[in-house]
């Protein structure tokens, strides 16, 4: 057979000038294509943060294509592939978009000073520095290296850390590392209650 098959081995439209592989006129399509308003959506697999069924969800965002553009969440759907929820969501999960985009969110670090009746804004660096200073001072004051029997205990009992229910494993592990290395004994989590 004499047909130069390989020469046709381009896909239908790529590189074609004016005609498609079968010979359809591409001009009208090209004209139409330049007038289309196309958006680029990213779909992110996430997990519902509420109960322990851990329903899979897919979060749709637009605007990730361009740099310096904050993506916007436009839709949250159940993950159709998820073996447990199979695309369904409960009334809490179904309204997750309202949790992701919520005007009650805290947006700035704040501090309430002793005796004060209001919040003040505080720069991040200052907040971190103040917290670290207080933390160190407290540890240096209360750290116990040996108990009354002379046994090494290396513990710090005057500081507590309370972890939440939606903290990830990895974050919790950072907590364990940082807190246990400082000797914190009062380490608790929503898991207890």
């Amino acid at each position, binding site marked *: 057979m004499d047909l130069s098959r390989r020469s046709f081995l381009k896909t239908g439209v790529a590189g074609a000038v004016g005609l498609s592989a079968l010979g359809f006129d591409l001009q009208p399509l090209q004209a139409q294509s330049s007038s289309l308003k196309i958006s680029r959506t990213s779909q992110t697999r996430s997990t519902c943060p509420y109960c322990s069924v851990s329903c899979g969800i897919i979060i749709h965002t637009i605007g990730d294509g361009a740099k310096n553009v904050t993506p916007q969440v436009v839709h949250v759907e159940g993950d159709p592939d998820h073996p447990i929820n199979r695309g369904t969501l409960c009334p809490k999960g179904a309204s997750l978009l309202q949790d992701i985009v919520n005007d009650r969110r805290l*947006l700035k670090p704040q501090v309430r000073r002793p005796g004060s009746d209001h919040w003040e804004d505080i720069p991040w660096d200052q907040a971190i520095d103040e917290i670290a200073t207080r933390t160190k001072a407290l540890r240096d004051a209360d750290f116990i290296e040996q108990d009354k029997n002379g046994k090494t205990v290396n513990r710090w009992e005057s500081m507590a850390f309370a972890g939440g229910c939606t903290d990830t494993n990895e974050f919790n592990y950072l907590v*364990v590392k940082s807190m246990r290395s400082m000797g914190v004994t009062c380490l608790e989590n929503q898991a207890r209650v």
Partner: protein
Amino acid sequence: MTNGWVDIKNTDMMLIMGGNPAENHPCGFKWVVEAKRNRNAKIIVVDPRFTRTATQADQFLQIRAGSDIAFLGGMINFAIQNKRYNEEYLVNYTNAAFVVKDGFKLPEDGLYSGFDTNAKTYDKSTWNYEEVGGPAAKPAAGSPPPPPALPPNVAYDLSLQNPRCVFQLLKQQYSRYTPEMVERITGIPKDQALKAWDTFTSIRQNGNMKKAGTIIYAVGWTQHSSGTQTIRTAAMIQLLLGNVGRAGGGVNALRGHSNIQGATDIAGVFDILPGYLKMPTPADTDLKAYLTRTTPKASKPKEWDSFNYWSNTPAFTVSFLKALYGDAATKENDFAFNWLPKIDRKYSWAEIWDDMYNGKIKGMMAFGMNGVMIGPNGKKNIEALKKADFLVVCEIYPDETSEFWRAPGTTPDEMKKIQTTVYRLPGAGFAEKDGTFVNSARWLQWKWAAVPPPGDCRLDQEILARIFLKVREKYQKEGGKLADPILKLSWNYTNPYNPSLAEIAKELNGKALADVTDQKTNTTIKADQQLPGFAFLRDDGSTMSGNWLYCGSWTEAGALTQRRDPADPSGLGIHANWAWSWPMNRRVMYNRASCDLNGKPWDPDRKQVWWSEAKQKWAGNDVPDFKADSDPKTHMGPFIMNPEGVGRLFVPIGAVADGPFPEHYEPTESPIANPLHPGQSNNPIAKRFKSDMDKYGTVEQGFNIICTTYRLTEHYHYWTKNNPMNVQLVPEPFVEIPAELADQMGLRGGEKVKVTSARAEYIAKAMVTKRIKGMMIDGKKTYQIGIPIHWGFRGIAEDEGKTAKTPVNYLSPAVIDPNAYTPEFKGFLVKLERA
């Protein structure tokens, strides 16, 4: 959960008790409905209220809050009386045949042998198995007795006739839980209880193992002063009936939050280290002492085999220490074991607040944890915070804890006196963070960040890292007490100030630090490679792993937690390639028990794993939770995490603090004296607190109504009160009140009522309902009420002034279970009046 959400579809029988999954886990509940629809599975629901779950039940029984052990104990009694067990499973897979030490005494009077009335603790030495031929060596006179240990060679009686064998003791213990006694304690009419017991145990009629039944529970069991023992009773029923390890069986805890399973695994709690390693005590003077104490030795009938997986404790521990301290942990310095804090008392949730109230705790960091709302005895928590120096709250919404200093009722003068500095740092929402959550079914599912945090919010890990690194910097510069652990903590992240969670996840899995070879399979993991599983962990410092339980989750093959292949060729709902579940991707734990002694599945229609004679290996649709090459002939027990290799009907030497068998004790605040032993009404070792704010109510003081607390399907804890849709669905707090009681009070639905406990008052509208009925408890007419927990003093409805702005947990008492240290949120006494 020993099993998983999807696995519920395989069941023939469900007991849902101490949980309300239709309400709190609707999408998981789908599988309950599937079982009902496709297998005609039966559902028995036992709850203080007729719940949304109860609407799906074939039988509903209203129980008095906090009397679950009595009902379950009655079921054990019924099952034994009616031979609703399979002897093969019972004898070979549980410790029913083990002989218990002479001197062990059942709690006819409410106390097991060994109780120390002054210290309120047990000497647990008699809570042990009889050793064949008695103890090998008597301790020399004068020297202190060694700590109780399990005997390596356990006496047993396969005929189960020995009066001191576990089965006979079990029978004796629960023979007291007659239908009449159960009715007195629980308020469930005995004919109803008998019907429910008969239905549930009917799956094991004539010992036929074909069917499987599951027990599903949640914090309705946990949040009691005998919470752990309640769950144990359920586990015992499942062992007795041979339901553990089987598809459609198991003991299934439905956890309430997206990642508290993970938080427990990672040990975000005071009493353990990651992977359920035990916390060191001051007596553990070096690593060896610690490992000797914490590494169990096999304890079994001589002829049997036991895998005793915890014998690998040294490898797990050392790998963890290497993860913590990296190169600073060397064999020479005991892998820096001494830098770990050593504890000899409890620092559990309620104890922390008590310590803070007593001025012992001066600083607190709360990351997404709303302690004022959670309580118990929330007002005490507010008072405690007033005494602290500083509080750091990382949150996404304005919450009650960060605003404790302006809790309703605080006057401007009082506010001026509150000296606590509060930092409120805006963290990131779930959609802004990646990382893994572990669901109830132990699935580690990685999630990806969809959007960056808004405004000036930061990722939680960045906030924590910056605080820690700032502290470290200060120690570096200024020095201070024991700075080494801080300075030498391994923190090798590409961006230490904002560690990538993927890097941390890899660290959790662990990697080889030197080449590691598995002799059996002759595979070598090269240094710096991710470990494929915990079998490769070593105790010589050649491996590191942040959490041995998660070893295998992020291997050289990549992040298994990110797998999203929904395929389920067996149709059993295993989905082995969807994410990853601990341990080693096993979806049903103890699945060896799904086979008979010869390794053949009890039910050929639900083949989970089986012994392949051809390959001389265990094979399966699921990953066998067993030693892969253990020939059934060796009689290795399926419960590989127990030193015995079998399931524990009897728990020896104080693994459970309040007794080897569960016993019914009254809740701390109870309307009656325990009908079993009025002299010892409550759990003798449950902890109460003694501060001036810890008050406990009695019927004599007028607190005559039982109150329980719970969640609604439309809301999620203290979170969705910021979400308009959920607020629309259920706008306001309310108190559910039995219609009968409301009639007596002349109360109509929608009118306001005041609920008073010994600790606080709570005002909300009344929901008069027929779903809670008055009960006869030990001959006394008793009423229960219920309050959903979702409202506090910050939220859409709260800010609009639509609620009384009092958290429900102002009411609840600080009493904690002696094993899990969980407070008794369910079942305390209140009075009820019109407001």
